[in-house]
């Protein structure tokens, strides 16, 4: 079981690193949004640092959506999905391996890049630290929720737009608590841990629902 899980995880990490992989795309998109916003808003540092966490979270959410549509679609198109069904592991575990690999190459880099991009929106050091923490804890929820949509649209050509419409509403709670935790770290009346723990709970909840839901969608996809 561990062996099959690891084989799939390593394969998807290798694929992401090769030409045409989705590894860098989300990160560059994230960078593009965060770079553009100060140009649009003008050099008001107070305004930027006030809305900075919200900008970073919206950018991270949109960057997560990019590339999600290929999560299962690529395997569906070349027949690899049929191979995944023959494994000695349940489809849920195969889904977990694929989603984990996807998060490692899209979600994790976003969280690690947040402090550098925080400079562009004049975040204080505390706020940068809070951004890294909230993105680390919150982006898995986005990926798991997105996996259900990716599985549902796996056999659709150009399913990317439908995927976004399907999963965006379910990502809103994560966005709300992610931004409020990041804001709470730099002031306000709510202590940091309250929204942060809810964010962590959302990720754990999304992990269970996402894995079971995505596997069910793949099973009934034919």
């Amino acid at each position, binding site marked *: 079981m561990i062996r*099959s899980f690891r*084989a799939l995880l390593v394969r998807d990490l290798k694929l992401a690193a090769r030409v045409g992989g989705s590894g860098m795309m989300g990160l560059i998109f994230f960078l593009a949004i965060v770079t553009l916003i100060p140009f649009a808003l003008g050099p008001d540092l107070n305004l930027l640092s006030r809305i900075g966490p919200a900008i970073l979270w919206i950018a991270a959410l949109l960057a997560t959506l990019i590339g999600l549509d290929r999560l299962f679609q690529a395997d569906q198109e070349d027949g690899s999905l049929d191979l995944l069904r023959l*494994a000695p592991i349940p489809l849920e575990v195969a889904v977990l391996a694929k989603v984990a690999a996807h998060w490692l190459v899209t979600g994790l880099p976003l969280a690690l890049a947040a402090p550098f991009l925080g400079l562009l929106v004049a975040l204080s050091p505390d706020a940068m630290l809070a951004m890294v923490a909230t993105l680390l804890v919150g982006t898995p929820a986005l990926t798991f929720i997105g996996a259900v949509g990716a599985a549902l649209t796996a056999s659709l050509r150009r399913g990317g737009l439908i995927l976004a419409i399907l999963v965006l509403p379910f990502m809103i709670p994560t966005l709300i608590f992610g931004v409020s935790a990041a804001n709470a770290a730099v002031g306000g009346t709510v202590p940091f841990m309250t929204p942060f723990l809810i964010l962590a709970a959302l990720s754990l909840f999304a992990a269970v629902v996402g894995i079971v839901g995505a596997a069910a969608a793949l099973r009934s996809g034919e």
Partner: protein
Amino acid sequence: MKAGVVGLRLDVEDLACNRGERRIFSGVSFSLAAGGALIVTGRNGAGKSTLLDLLAGRLHPAGGRIALSGAGDRTLPECLHYVGHRDALKSALTARENLDFARNFLGDPVLKAQEALEVVGLAHAAGLPVAYLSAGQRRRIALARLLVANRPLWLLDEPTSALDTASQATLLRLMEEHRDRGGLVIATTHAPLALRDAKEVRIERARTVLAEDAP
């Protein structure tokens, strides 16, 4: 090479399949014991591939029964290899990486990736990304997957398509060797396959001739 699961037996009774509201076929029955081979024939679109999809667990039968015995606690999908029209290869990975993945992922490893590639005559292409290879070479790599993990039942959908005559002979030899070890082979085909003592089932739309011994 290790022997397959000893005494594996597959019994299919009165199998029927619907896609949407449409009945594809019904009344398909056959049984295969260890070392057996079944050739599935029929017109284009008659449902040959659909029958393999049912056996591989991708589709659910609308009626009838698929019974597997002698496999211990393994389910039918865990006992089989499936090589279909789509080769299930990642074109960004090399031939060796594709086979290494299949070997580790499917479990019960037998040949190493390099050895399996030598058997299908592609040892020189082991380090090339699959995207650079021709359709016939890709098909041979997909068939090499049969050799890297031990699975007693081989489901082959038009296995000879895109293969040259030498590779077809190799494939035939591999199938016979697999049967000698007690394995089972189910293949769909248009061109006649010279498998010895193979049963044949012909699928026709909504009416199916039962399995009989091929001449």
